[in-house]
C-alpha cells in the first residue's frame, strides 16, 4: 500500500496521482526516498554570499515541472555586503507561522542577528521557476535541511575570516552577525566577509549547533508579516492586481456532481461591466476542476451580479436525491455489516461476551466546511503563450500540474507564485481555484481573478467527511479494558477524489489497534494500545458530496469517539480516567522499531503529556462549585497533546444549556520548540477552532445540495464564546521538532464532552453539540 509519505513525496515532486492531503503534517524528514539534496553556494547578484539547496530528483522526475533542469533551488539564504540577510522559505504561510519559524531555523545556525533578517517568499530570479513544495508540517520535514543551509553559510563566513586572518577556522567563533578570533582580538561583520565567502568551496559536512547554544530557536518571535497585516498592505491572493485584469465568478451546479446543460447568458451580459461568458467543461476528477459557467467582468461586484443573472438549466446528475437521511441509511448498513476489517487481534466477540461491563456507543459527525475567511480565489494571466498564476496556493507544484491538465499547456509554460493565504484548514490543498483561473485566463487571453463569494464557498467546498461510528468496549471485573470493537463508517476522501489507495486510509487516523509485532504491520496513523482484544472495521458510503481534509483530518472525529468512550468506561467502573488511559497506553517497548527509523508514535511521550496535563489542569482535584473538569489526549502527526477543560453549564434561552469554558489547560510535546509564540497561538487557535466546530459546525445535505448559505446559518465561534483562559504548556525536549497546526484540535471536544458528562450526567455523542442543546456562552 502506498503510504502517506509516498504521496507526500510525490506531491513535492509534482506528481499528481491525487491532490495533496493536509497530511503534510505527517511528512517525515527521514522518509525513504531516492532524492538527494545537496547544498551549493555562490556569488549573489548583490555581490554577497548565497547558499541554497538543490535537489537532483526534482530535475529527474519525469512528471515534474522541472525536468531537464539542473536542480531546483528550494530555499536559500543570502548574506549581502551591507550585512543584510535574506532568507527565502518555500513553504506556504496560512497563519501557522511558517514564514517566521522556518527562517528562524536558518538564522539560528547562521548565527544571524534576527533584526537584520528579511524574509521573502518568492525566488529572486524567475529562471528558478517557482516554489516547489508544500505540506502543513513544514518544521518537521525541513528542520534538518534548514539547519544545514544556515550552518553552511556560517561555515563559509568563518572560513573567509580565517583565510583573511591566516588563522585556523577552528579558532574562530561567532556571535550574531560577527566572526571573532579571540586570541588576536580580531572580528569582522558578516557583510564584510560575504563576497570572499562566496568564492569558497562548500564544506561537505558542517557541524550543527548544540541545542544549548541556541539564541533564536526556542524564543518568541512575532510574525514576519505582522506590520503589513496591521497596515492593510496587499499580501493575499485576493489582493493581487494586474493592470487591465478582469474578475470572474463561476456558477456551479447547486447539486453535487451536476453540470450545466443549457446556458442563457443574455441577462448576464446586460449587467453593466460584464464582458464575457466562459463555459468550463470540468475534468473527470472533480477535485481538479468542476464544470461551471464563468461570468467575466470589470469588477468583482459586476461578476457576482452577472452570475446571479445567469439562467442555467442544470443536469443535476446522479445524486439529486441524496440527503442526510440517505447517508444515514448507508452508514447504518455499514455498521451492521462492515465491509473491511483493518485490524483484528485477540478474540473481540468472546471478550465482549465475557466482559464484566460493556459500553456500546454510536457517534455521529456531520460534514463541516472550511470557510476560510479569504474566499476561494486565484489570479491568472495568459501572455505570450505562458500562464502566470498568483494566488493563495498551499500546493504550488500540484497547482501547476492540475492547471496543465485543465489547460493542456505544457507545465513549463505555467508559472506559479503563491501568496500569503487567508486561512487554509485543509481547503487549499485542492488546487481547483488555480485550474479555474488558468482555464478562464487562457480562454479570454488575458488576466483574470476567479473569485467566489461566501455562498459559493459554502456550497462548493470539499467538506470534512461525515461519519457514523460505533464503539463497543468492555472491562473485566478488575476494571481493566479488555475489549475494543470500533467500526468507522465514513465518507472517504480517497473515494471522492478517485485516489487508488484504499478508501479507509485517510479516515482511520488515530484509531486504536492492539499489539503489532513489526514495523511493517504498523500503520503510522494507528495507535497500538495495550488492550488484548481489538478490532477495527471500516466502510464508506457512495456519495456525491465532495470531501477533503479538514484540520486534523479524521483525527477530530476518531479522537472524540475514543476519548469519550474511555472516559465513560472509567466512570462506569469507578476508576480514574487518567489511570485507565495510562494502563492502556502501554510503554515505548510495546511499539516495534527498526534500524534508525524513528517510531511515529511513542506511548511514553503520550503518558508524560497526559500526566502533566492532569497535574497542571488539577484534574484530580475538586473543581470550584458549579464547575467540572474533563480530560482528553491525542497524538496527531507526531505531536502529543492532552487537555483539561474546566467549564460550567447554565440554563439559556429555549431550553438550551450554555457552556462557559473557564479554562483550558493544554500540555504538549512537540520536540524541540522553535517559536513558542507561534506554538501558543496555535494552541489558542486550535482549541477555539475545535470548540467552534464541535458546538456548531454542520453542513446538512438536502436534495443533493449543501444547505448553509452564509455565516447566518453556518455558525462560527465568536469572541464572546472563546475560553476565558487557555494555558499552553510544552514539555521541554530536544527531540526532532514536530508541527502544531493541527494537534491541539482533537483533544478539546472530548475533554469538553467529558466535563459536561461529569457536571450534568449528559453524554454527548454527536457533533454539533448544539443539536443536543449545548451552546457556548
Amino acid at each position, binding site marked *: 500500500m502506498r503510504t502517506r509519505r509516498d504521496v507526500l513525496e510525490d506531491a513535492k515532486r509534482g506528481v499528481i496521482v491525487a491532490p495533496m492531503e493536509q497530511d503534510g503534517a505527517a511528512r517525515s524528514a527521514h522518509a525513504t526516498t531516492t532524492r538527494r539534496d545537496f547544498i551549493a553556494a555562490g556569488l549573489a547578484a548583490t555581490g554577497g554570499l548565497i547558499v541554497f539547496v538543490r535537489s537532483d530528483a526534482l530535475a529527474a522526475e519525469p512528471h515534474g515541472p522541472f525536468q531537464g533542469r539542473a536542480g531546483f533551488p528550494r530555499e536559500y539564504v543570502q548574506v549581502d555586503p551591507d550585512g543584510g540577510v535574506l532568507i527565502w522559505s518555500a513553504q506556504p504561510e496560512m497563519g501557522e507561522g511558517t514564514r517566521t519559524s522556518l527562517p528562524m531555523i536558518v538564522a539560528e545556525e547562521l548565527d544571524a542577528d534576527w533584526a537584520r533578517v528579511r524574509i521573502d517568499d518568492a525566488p529572486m530570479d524567475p529562471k528558478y521557476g517557482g516554489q516547489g513544495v508544500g505540506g502543513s508540517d513544514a518544521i518537521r520535514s525541513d528542520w534538518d535541511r534548514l539547519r544545514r543551509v544556515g550552518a553552511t553559510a556560517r561555515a563559509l563566513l568563518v572560513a573567509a575570516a580565517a583565510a583573511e586572518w591566516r588563522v585556523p577556522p577552528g579558532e574562530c567563533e561567532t556571535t550574531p552577525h560577527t566572526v571573532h578570533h579571540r586570541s588576536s582580538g580580531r572580528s569582522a561583520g558578516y557583510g564584510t566577509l560575504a563576497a570572499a565567502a562566496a568564492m569558497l568551496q562548500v564544506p561537505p559536512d558542517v557541524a550543527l549547533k548544540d541545542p544549548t547554544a541556541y539564541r533564536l530557536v526556542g524564543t*518568541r518571535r512575532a510574525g514576519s508579516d505582522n506590520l503589513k497585516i*496591521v*497596515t492593510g498592505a496587499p499580501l493575499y491572493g485576493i489582493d493581487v492586481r494586474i493592470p487591465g485584469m478582469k474578475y470572474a465568478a463561476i456558477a456551479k451546479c447547486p447539486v453535487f456532481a451536476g453540470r450545466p446543460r443549457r446556458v442563457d447568458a443574455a441577462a448576464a451580459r446586460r449587467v453593466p461591466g460584464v464582458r464575457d461568458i466562459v463555459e468550463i467543461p470540468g475534468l473527470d476528477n472533480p477535485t481538479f476542476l468542476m464544470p461551471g459557467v464563468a461570468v467575466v467582468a470589470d469588477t468583482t461586484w459586476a461578476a457576482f451580479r452577472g452570475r446571479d443573472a445567469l439562467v442555467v438549466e442544470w443536469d443535476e446528475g446522479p445524486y439529486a436525491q441524496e440527503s442526510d437521511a440517505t447517508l444515514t441509511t448507508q452508514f447504518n448498513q455499514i455498521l451492521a455489516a462492515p465491509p473491511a476489517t483493518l485490524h483484528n487481534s485477540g478474540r473481540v466477540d468472546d471478550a465482549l461476551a465475557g466482559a464484566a461491563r460493556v459500553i456500546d456507543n454510536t457517534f455521529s459527525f456531520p460534514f463541516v466546511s472550511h470557510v476560510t*475567511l479569504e474566499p476561494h480565489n486565484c489570479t491568472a494571466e495568459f501572455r505570450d503563450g505562458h500562464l502566470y498564476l498568483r494566488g493563495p496556493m498551499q500546493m504550488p507544484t500540484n497547482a501547476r500540474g492540475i492547471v496543465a491538465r485543465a489547460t493542456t499547456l505544457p507545465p513549463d509554460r505555467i508559472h506559479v507564485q503563491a501568496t500569503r493565504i*487567508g*486561512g487554509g484548514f485543509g481547503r487549499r490543498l485542492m488546487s481547483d481555484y488555480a485550474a479555474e483561473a488558468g482555464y478562464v485566463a487562457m480562454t479570454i487571453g488575458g488576466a483574470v481573478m476567479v473569485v467566489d463569494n461566501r455562498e459559493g464557498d459554502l456550497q462548493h467546498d470539499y467538506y470534512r467527511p461525515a461519519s457514523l461510528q460505533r464503539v463497543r468496549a468492555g472491562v473485566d471485573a478488575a476494571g481493566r479494558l479488555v475489549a475494543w470493537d470500533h467500526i468507522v463508517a465514513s465518507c472517504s476522501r480517497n473515494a471522492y477524489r478517485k485516489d487508488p489507495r484504499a478508501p479507509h486510509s485517510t479516515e482511520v487516523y488515530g484509531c486504536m489497534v492492539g499489539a503489532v509485532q513489526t514495523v511493517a504491520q504498523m500503520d503510522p496513523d494507528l495507535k497500538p494500545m495495550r488492550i488484548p482484544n481489538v478490532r477495527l472495521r471500516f466502510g464508506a458510503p457512495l456519495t456525491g458530496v465532495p470531501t477533503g481534509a479538514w484540520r486534523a483530518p479524521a483525527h477530530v472525529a476518531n479522537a472524540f469517539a475514543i476519548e469519550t468512550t474511555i472516559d465513560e468506561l472509567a466512570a462506569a467502573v469507578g476508576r480514574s480516567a487518567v489511570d485507565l488511559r495510562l494502563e492502556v497506553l502501554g510503554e515505548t517497548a510495546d511499539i516495534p522499531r527498526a534500524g534508525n527509523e524513528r517510531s511515529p508514535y511513542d506511548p511514553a511521550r503520550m503518558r508524560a503529556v497526559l500526566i502533566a496535563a492532569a497535574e497542571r489542569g488539577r484534574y484530580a482535584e475538586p473543581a470550584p462549585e458549579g464547575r467540572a473538569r474533563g480530560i482528553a489526549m491525542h497524538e496527531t502527526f507526531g505531536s502529543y497533546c492532552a487537555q483539561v477543560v474546566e467549564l460550567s453549564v447554565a440554563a439559556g434561552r429555549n431550553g438550551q444549556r450554555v457552556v462557559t469554558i473557564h479554562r483550558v489547560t493544554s500540555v504538549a510535546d512537540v520536540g524541540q520548540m522553535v517559536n513558542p509564540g507561534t506554538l501558543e497561538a*496555535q494552541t489558542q487557535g486550535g482549541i477555539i*477552532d475545535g470548540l467552534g466546530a464541535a458546538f456548531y459546525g454542520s453542513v446538512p445535505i438536502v436534495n443533493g445540495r449543501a444547505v448553509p448559505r452564509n455565516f447566518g446559518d453556518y455558525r*462560527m465561534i*465568536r469572541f464572546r464564546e472563546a475560553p476565558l483562559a487557555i494555558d499552553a504548556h510544552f514539555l521541554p525536549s530536544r527531540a526532532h521538532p514536530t508541527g502544531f497546526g493541527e494537534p491541539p484540535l482533537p483533544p478539546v471536544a472530548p475533554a469538553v464532552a467529558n466535563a459536561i458528562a461529569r457536571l450534568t450526567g449528559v453524554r454527548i455523542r454527536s457533533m454539533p453539540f448544539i443539536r443536543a442543546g449545548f451552546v457556548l456562552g
Partner: protein
Amino acid sequence: MPPISLNVNGRSIDVDADPQTPLLWLLRDELGLTGTKFGCGRGFCGACTVHVDGVATRSCTLTTERAAGRRITTIEGLAATNGGALHPVQQAWLEHDVPQCGYCQAGQIMTAASLLNRTARPSESDVATAMNGHICRCGTYIRIREALQRAAQLRAGSDDTGGDAS
C-alpha cells in the same frame, strides 16, 4: 450617471460607479485599497469594516451612494488619523503578535480603534459587544482581548486629547 464624490483617507475622489455598488468593492476594485477585506458580503463577519465619520461600519452592505460625502477611513489610512504613527491599536496588535492568517485583522483593528476613539477605557462588556461582530477563523480572540486592553493603555499614555481621532 453623475460621478459620486467620496472622501477616502482624507482625499476627495470622484468616482463613476453604480450608486448601488457596495463601498467594499469600490475600495478594492476601483480605488486599489485592498486592505479592506471581503469575507461574507452580508455583514456577518466584519472583515470589511471601515470608519464612516469615525464609526466602525461594514463596507460590504454600505452602498457607494450612502457613503458619498462622508469621511471614510480604511485600514490604509488609520495611521494618518494618528498623526502618521501607527494607531495604538495597530501598535498593540504588533506587541501581542495577534495575527495568524491575518485576513480578518484589518476589520478587527478598525472596530477596536473606533471603540477606543469613543470609549477610552472600555469595560469587558464594551469590548465583547464591539468585537463579537467579527469572525476570526484562526481563533485569535484571546490575543485580541489582551491587545485591546494594551491599546487602551497606550492610547491613554500617548493621547490625552481624547475625542474622535478618525
